[in-house]
């Protein structure tokens, strides 16, 4: 058996794919109140600045600019989605839907950038919406943030949704705001309204 029936999409190949899926234009950094390269003070960061960051993240996901989205994470990134029936699921013990460390997150992005992620080629149109943002009290070097979200997904005539809460842990890496961990807890009692979870929430 051979498994090398095609190389992963190289960065150079992506614009052609992007054109086929009619993606919205990418956000332009200078217009954003929080730029990923801006130096911030984690203690002085108010809710509106966090919301600016979350808005940027949502725009990157909706634009399928996943390579830039990855840069929003700290090096020891984690992205976890528990199963619908066990919102307290612990990836070390329990079955979860997603348990990505930095490497697996990068490989997930590589997959979704490729034409061979059949469920997402062509890409869904998505709309990542968040609200009810609560900035917690700093714990060590981490700033916990919780927000409600709705992600809409449209593809091939089908509409589906994901509803739940984001649990972020932000850190400052050389003064730059980054996501150390993002735990996405779904409120839907099953994944059935959405079918599967091939997109990133």
């Amino acid at each position: 058996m051979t498994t090398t029936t095609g190389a992963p999409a190289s960065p150079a190949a992506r614009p052609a794919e992007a054109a086929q899926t009619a993606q919205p234009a990418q956000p332009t950094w200078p217009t954003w109140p929080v730029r990923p390269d801006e130096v911030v003070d984690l203690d002085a960061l108010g809710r509106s600045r966090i919301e600016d960051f979350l808005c940027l993240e949502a725009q990157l996901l909706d634009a399928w600019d996943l390579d830039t989205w990855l840069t929003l994470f700290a090096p020891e990134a984690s992205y976890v989605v528990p199963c619908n029936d066990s919102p307290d699921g612990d990836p070390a013990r329990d079955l979860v839907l997603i348990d990505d460390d930095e490497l697996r997150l990068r490989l997930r992005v590589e997959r979704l950038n490729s034409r061979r992620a059949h469920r997402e080629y062509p890409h869904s149109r998505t709309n990542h919406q968040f609200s009810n943002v609560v900035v917690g009290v700093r714990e060590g070097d981490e700033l916990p943030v919780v927000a409600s979200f709705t992600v809409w997904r449209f593809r091939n005539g089908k509409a589906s949704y994901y509803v739940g809460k984001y649990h972020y842990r932000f850190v400052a890496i050389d003064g730059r705001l980054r996501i150390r961990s993002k735990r996405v807890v779904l409120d839907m009692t099953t994944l059935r309204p959405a079918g599967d979870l091939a997109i990133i929430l």
Partner: protein
Amino acid sequence: MFMVRGAKSGRINVFHNTCTHRGAVVCRQPAGNAKAFSCFYHAWTFDSEGRLMGIPDRDAYGGELDLAALSLRPVARVESYRGFVFASFDPDIEDLVSYLAGAIEYLDLVIDSTDGEMEIIKGTNEYCIEANWKLLAENSIDGYHAVSTHDTYFKYLLALGTDLAGGVNGTSYDLGNGHAVLEYRAPWGRPIAKWEPLFGEDSREEIARMRADLISRHGEVRGSRMADTNRNLLIYPNLVVNDIMAITVRTFMPLAPNRMDVTAWELAPRDELAQLRQRRLDSFLTFLGPAGFATPDDLEALESCQQGFTSGGVEWNDISRGMARTPAANDEAQMRAFWRRWSQQMGTAGYGERESR
């Protein structure tokens, strides 16, 4: 339906989840313990054996009520095999062991692979596919699609350092009564008990010990089969037990001709070493989970077939692959076993009314 162990009898009872008074459901929790099942509508109460124990204002019936006749309705037939509980609505169905036919051997291989107990890990995959349920019966035992559909999964394994050189090699078997299995060697590791670099050097010794233990308990042939080979097992009509890089127990229920609900659990030895459990969990969610690197593409394939069928120009699928040789794991003999049984049971009804166009 719901399942409860009778507090007195210890028996596994499977009841229609329907109050015998006016029909509301009497069990409204997904899991747990209960002494009684009380219908909230008019408070009729049943015990764990299904007996009707309480009726508010019972005098109103003037002593004419036949309580025994108003017990919870059991599902027609319930039998267990090594912890797997099977229910059937057919009161005349053959006994379970006869029904399982050649599939028994393969359930035994799963359960016997640990000397302790198996458990269902917390966390359920409950997803849905907008396709006919029979397409998942096919897909769950389809070795032919792996390379083409799951290219990104194999790339993922490659990126993690898995050696793909050996490929996927094996055989498919018709197990009788519509059941079928693929048995094959594959590049990925198995927590019981085939080591690969991804498991880490510190697991190497433990896996070697588990493998030796299997061989001492079951002999070289059966022991190494448990350790080294993968099995995709379909128990007709809608149960899948795939013992691969992790073990999935998957069932699927048709909701409409073009939609099914899928429910999948992860089976594992209860007292597994933490690092092996971690590998098993990772392997399950990345390959078998609906948010992984493979299963979403299966959904796409099945929904794509369903969409393709609606065009009406192609009336038949071709599943003749391997008819000219001893069926390999990437042939379609196992699908023919499923469809022959289905055709035998459905008769001409299976073909439906031919629409006039």
